């Protein structure tokens, strides 16, 4: 959630007068980084050209012909595809709902844990609720299938009691709530830590003063705790907006199945299955990828502008 919080550079302007010889060791230390970023981040940016090409790996990026003569054929094709729009809609719905649900859940959990007054229980709860964050979605999917899957306990129990078996993970109506639920299960506890840390920094005098005025617990939460975490909460919320179109590849890829593709396919899973799974249409896959990158980038810039305009700390 707070991946991008620390990117402010304390840049001083032109360093060009600096003595390169005196800093030779520092420059030596930065050379691997330059190579790394050029190779693994900038070369793929050059590879975006694939989106405009009728790409054949053997011919290479430059050797492949422009798609449809003008280079736009891949985009025309994906924009005409009704399934693409469905996938985009799924991505936005899943991305936005997950963002909001997790946001509220994390704050709620932090408020509850903060109200626990016995340090032992506070610590224990924290350990329990943050633990699932450190598991991979592969593992979590294993645990989920064991409950909701075809040979999971719910299905088994229904079968035994003579009822119609119902596999939750194959059901279009249940699958999306399952995504929200498992996301909260895995991540909300960890996300709440940041709010708990902020709450720990609130001066106890504020609460004492409120006690003297006869404030109730709810009043104290509403008037002291929530305002204190508001800046952090807003910052985290706007930061996560740039990731809406990512919507959680790991989670969906490990949990979904052909029965729910119609509702669960997001841009990333679609690119994966549509091009990598089939080994075909790299141009269209790259075009969808570029579409996603550009929209996400615009979202980040927009959110940054809005944040600065409304007086919050910007992110760029």
């Amino acid at each position, binding site marked *: 959630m707070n991946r991008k919080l620390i990117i402010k550079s304390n840049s001083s302007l*032109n*360093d*060009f007068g600096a003595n390169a010889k005196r800093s030779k060791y520092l420059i030596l230390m930065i050379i691997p980084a330059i190579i*790394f970023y050029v190779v693994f981040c900038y070369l793929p940016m050059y590879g975006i050209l694939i989106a405009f090409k009728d790409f054949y790996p053997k011919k290479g990026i430059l050797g492949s012909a422009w798609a449809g003569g003008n280079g736009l054929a891949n985009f025309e094709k994906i924009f005409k595809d009704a399934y693409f729009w469905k996938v985009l809609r799924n991505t936005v719905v899943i991305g936005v709902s997950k963002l909001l649900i997790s946001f509220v859940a994390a704050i709620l959990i932090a408020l509850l844990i903060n109200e626990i007054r016995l340090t032992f229980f506070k610590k224990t709860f924290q350990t329990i609720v943050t633990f699932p964050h*450190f598991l991979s979605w592969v593992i979590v999917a*294993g645990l989920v299938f064991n409950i909701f899957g075809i040979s999971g306990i719910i299905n088994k129990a229904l079968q035994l009691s003579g009822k119609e078996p119902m596999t939750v993970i194959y059901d279009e109506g249940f699958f999306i709530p399952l995504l929200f639920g498992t996301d909260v299960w895995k991540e909300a506890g960890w996300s709440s830590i940041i709010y708990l840390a902020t709450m720990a920094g609130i001066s106890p005098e504020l609460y004492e003063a409120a006690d003297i005025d006869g404030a*109730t617990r709810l009043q104290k939460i509403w008037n002291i705790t929530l305002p204190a975490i508001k800046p952090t909460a807003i910052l985290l919320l706007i930061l996560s907006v740039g990731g809406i179109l990512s919507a959680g590849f790991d989670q969906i890829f490990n949990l979904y199945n052909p029965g729910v593709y119609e509702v669960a396919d997001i841009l990333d899973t679609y690119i994966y299955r549509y091009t*990598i799974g089939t080994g075909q249409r790299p141009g269209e896959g790259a075009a969808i990828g570029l579409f996603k990158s550009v929209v996400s980038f615009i979202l980040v810039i927009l959110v940054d502008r809005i944040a600065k305009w409304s007086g919050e700390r910007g992110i760029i």
Partner: protein
Amino acid sequence: MRKFADIQYLPLRPKGSTFDKRITTMDWVIFAFLFIYGLIIIYPFYNALLVSISPDSVYNETPFLIIPKEVTWSNYHTVFTSDKLWSGLKVTLVLLFVGTAYQLFFTVITGYALSRGKWLGKNLVMNMILITMFFGGGLIPYMNLISKLGLYDTFLVMIIPGAIDTYNMLLMRNYFATLPPDLEESAKIDGANDLQIFVKVYLPMSLPMLATIGLFFAVGNWNSWYNAMLFIKNPEYKPLQLVLQEMIVEGSSNVERVSQTQTISEGFKMASVFFTIVPMMCFYPFLQKFFVKGLVVGAIKG
């Protein structure tokens, strides 16, 4: 029994106040909520454990169990004698040690170089790195690059592309930037160069931070499957998580494949899952404070 001192303070600490030690109904309600939430977190693990130690016949008859009816270790026996899982574990352990050291090395030297001095092109490099946090080429160009580099289906594809994690690198850079600069100046007067200052002065001061970041890398490597899934075809190079994924996820979610994988029992799957979770469960309670510190430091430093 209430102590005398407590009674004295009572007028200032009315019922329900923050410093009132008495337990109220509200406390019970909050506790109950969290208790249920905690149970929801724990239940899937407990259930997996039960399934893994129950014989298949018991699981098929009574899938909902609260306490084990009959304990068998046969699933774990199968796990420990499974070549696939051992091979996966070996790959994962190599990734865990080699990969973590490799990532730590490059992430830390980059963070240090960006935190010190005013060398030529520092801002340019910084901006070049920041741009990559907001814009990328996407999956298809990345895959094309990997095959062009000849990394496809090699062990190194799971290590090399992870050299620098931008977020942790910036965390490290910000940390180095907070260390007192006078140490550097006095070491320079003594004739030390930047490399010596880094290794002998600043690195020893940063060990807690290195531990924190190293732990995040270690967890990442333990859990890594994505690069392996994209690029690894050789079964000998498949890390534990990928082996598990092929066993659990593809078996359970791919309707057409269910019939083929029906031979893998639920008990065996859960035993394998537990086999992967247990190391994390053993270490996590002791390491939690490092992780929390890493998260909090990252968010508070602006």
